[in-house]
């Protein structure tokens, strides 16, 4: 137990949700709930307040249609569920600050109406404008995942938020073939944004699985034709970050295959303006092309999209500005622009996509827009765009066949994050999610790093373009990592019962093998540290505030020995902060996550500050 230190044990969200689901089902069993008088439970799974579950039984097997009435008829959200006699139906698309009418209609039968009142549940989110038509958007939503303190939302044709997560699930969100969505977890493993893994969940908010990754998850994932998952990761014990991709078994969470980018690229070549020795590649996307059985990655800090063979890992080609690269690389791997039309290379790009005919698209952020420091463009002179290149791997030529955004100049400029989607020929989504102004001028700083005192305005613009005509444009306040157009419901039930599972594993946290000679002080940590410990089943998170330059080490002292974890009190400057959701602008605040992997038994948690060893009063069990 704790003294002055705040301590909490937090169960995994799958366990918390399982308890809530059991309570709901127990209430359902105890009552006689009918179609006319169903059990209605709002936000059962605790993380989507714009959802509910309605439960009732019918004497005869029947299909049921649930309709959430929109504020206009065109905004109705409707789904017909498979037939049965026991109906446990997710309700999606509620409005905040509204008495929602939800119609329940039996197949070729009667309709009953339930009212679900939702309060003020939206946190740090605001839609500035949505320009489209209901005929075009229908019941699709634009889903946005966060880059700052905002959280994930889904926006309908009218600009209303009809889906929202209250936990900070970040990075990429995609729909899987089974109708569930896959998104980054909300469990931070290492600052600034390496998450414990991926959540597979229903849009009602129920998490079916967490796929934990030893190296953490960041930026992107991709479902393979056989259902396995590609995920971007790293080696948390290495000196470099964001330079590994793994293939995950969906049943076990185990790692099936690993690609280490140092095996086919040379760190230090082709540096972008944001390059660092640690984050030399900054991988933000992966795409699997079944036709060529290859992987294409996006490396922001090399301004390149390299393609490798899936089986062998052999480098096939690189899309990017070859200036500054050694001759042997340029001759072997780079493309030469061909054709008569406009052509610009992409810089610090995101979200590579391979189209069905083999063209390659990306969001060209354009940050710095040169390989030569003296030619870097500032934000006001720059532009971002969605771009499509046609490549010929026989004669190694490249042509720019489409772009959207250059003509809008700095108004559409995002130096980080963003994505493009391909729907069909001439039909694309282009999301500029990192637009930032400081004192009314386009910012040179990333939106995730601006301080409250910077008089900053952050926004994102998402455009859906059909044969060069903008059919939808959404502008939100705040930066958003990516956008995806999806319907709320997929085919089928959309909600399975039963406790979710936690798959895969976390890696051992690197320890420090040098001791600090410190006197056992016998006192608790100073109150000024504002320390807290959150223990979970597979890790603990220690947060505290120290002064710059203090020498700090966390100790886990147990019968089998002492484990030491150095805590740096040096401010870290970032050139990349794709998701600033967990970023703390107070440099004195530290956070360290320690995996329980490799630890066994009970440990007293103590902290050395300079030459004194303090108590926390906390004992953890592994």
């Amino acid at each position, binding site marked *: 137990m704790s003294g002055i230190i705040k301590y909490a044990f937090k169960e995994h969200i799958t366990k918390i949700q399982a308890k809530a689901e059991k309570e709901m089902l127990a209430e359902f069993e105890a009552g006689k709930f009918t179609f006319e008088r169903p059990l209605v439970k709002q936000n059962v799974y605790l993380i989507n307040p714009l959802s509910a579950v309605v439960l009732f039984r019918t004497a005869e097997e029947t299909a049921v249609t649930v309709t959430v009435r929109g504020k206009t008829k065109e905004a109705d959200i409707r789904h017909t569920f498979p037939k049965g006699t026991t109906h446990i139906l997710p309700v999606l698309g509620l409005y905040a600050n509204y008495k929602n009418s939800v119609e329940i209609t039996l197949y070729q039968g009667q309709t009953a109406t339930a009212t679900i009142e939702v309060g003020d549940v939206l946190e740090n989110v605001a839609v500035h404008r949505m320009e489209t038509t209901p005929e075009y958007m229908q019941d699709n939503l634009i889903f946005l995942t966060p880059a700052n303190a905002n959280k994930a939302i889904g926006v309908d044709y009218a600009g209303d938020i009809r889906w929202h997560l209250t936990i900070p699930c970040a990075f990429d969100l995609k729909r899987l073939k089974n109708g569930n969505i896959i998104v980054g977890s909300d469990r931070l493993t290492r600052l600034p944004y390496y998450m414990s893994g991926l959540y597979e969940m229903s849009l009602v908010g129920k998490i079916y699985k967490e796929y934990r990754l030893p190296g953490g998850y960041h930026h992107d994932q991709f479902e393979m034709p056989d259902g396995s998952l590609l995920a971007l990761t790293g080696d948390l014990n290495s000196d470099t970050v964001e330079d590994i991709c793994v293939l995950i078994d969906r049943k076990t969470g185990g790692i099936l295959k690993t690609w280490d980018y140092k095996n086919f690229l040379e760190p230090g070549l082709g540096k972008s303006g944001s390059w660092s020795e640690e984050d030399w590649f900054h991988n933000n996307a992966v795409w699997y092309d079944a036709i060529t059985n290859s992987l294409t990655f996006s490396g922001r800090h090399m301004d390149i999209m390299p393609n490798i063979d899936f089986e062998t890992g052999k480098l096939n080609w690189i899309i990017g500005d070859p200036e500054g690269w050694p001759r042997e690389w340029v001759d072997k791997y780079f493309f030469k622009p061909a054709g008569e039309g406009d052509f610009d290379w992409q810089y610090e790009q995101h979200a590579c996509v391979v189209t069905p005919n083999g063209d390659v698209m990306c969001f060209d952020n354009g940050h710095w827009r040169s390989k030569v420091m003296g030619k870097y463009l500032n934000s006001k002179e720059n532009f971002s765009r969605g771009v499509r290149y046609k490549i010929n791997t026989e004669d190694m030529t490249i042509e720019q066949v489409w772009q959207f955004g250059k003509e809008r100049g700095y108004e559409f400029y995002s130096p980080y994050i963003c994505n493009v989607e391909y729907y069909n020929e001439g039909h694309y989504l282009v999301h500029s999610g990192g637009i930032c102004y400081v004192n009314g001028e386009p910012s040179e700083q990333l939106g995730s790093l601006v301080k409250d005192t910077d008089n900053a305005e952050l926004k994102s613009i998402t455009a859906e373009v059909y044969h060069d005509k903008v059919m939808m444009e959404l502008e939100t306040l705040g930066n958003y990592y990516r956008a995806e157009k999806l319907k709320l419901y997929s085919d089928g039930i959309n909600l399975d019962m039963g406790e979710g599972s936690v798959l895969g594993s976390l890696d051992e946290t690197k320890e420090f*093998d*040098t001791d*600090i000679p410190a006197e056992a002080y016998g006192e608790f940590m100073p109150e000024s540290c504002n320390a807290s410990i959150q223990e979970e089943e597979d890790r603990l998170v220690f947060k505290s505030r120290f002064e*710059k*330059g203090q020498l700090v*080490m966390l100790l886990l002292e147990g019968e089998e020995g002492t484990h030491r974890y*150095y805590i740096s009190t*040096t401010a870290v400057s970032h050139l990349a902060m794709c998701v600033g959701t967990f970023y703390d602008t107070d440099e004195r605040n530290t956070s360290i996550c320690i995996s329980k992997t490799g630890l066994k038994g009970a440990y007293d948690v103590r902290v050395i500050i300079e030459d004194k060893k303090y108590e926390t009063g906390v004992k953890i069990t592994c």
Partner: protein
Amino acid sequence: MTKEVNVQEFNAEYSSGLVLTDFYSKDCGPCKMLAFVLRDVEKLHPGLNILKVDFDECKDLTEKYGVEGYPTLILFKDGAEVARMKGLQQKPAIIRMIEENA
């Protein structure tokens, strides 16, 4: 042996044999941690000369050797730089650097 040196003392010491130079700052947490790491390194290599150079007070040296941050370790062999490490390091990595250049 570990000792704090100024510019003149560094110039007198660094040119002979294997010398490990630790560019540090007094108000730097990682630098303080590295001092304990080097204490352990010294136990394994008692003949190694370890020179501590204050980054803020020895600008001539930091400029001469292009030291941009702290802590920075530079290994000299008979006066020539043979290896460099930036940031806090653990003992095995430093031992490896020394033994590869001995």
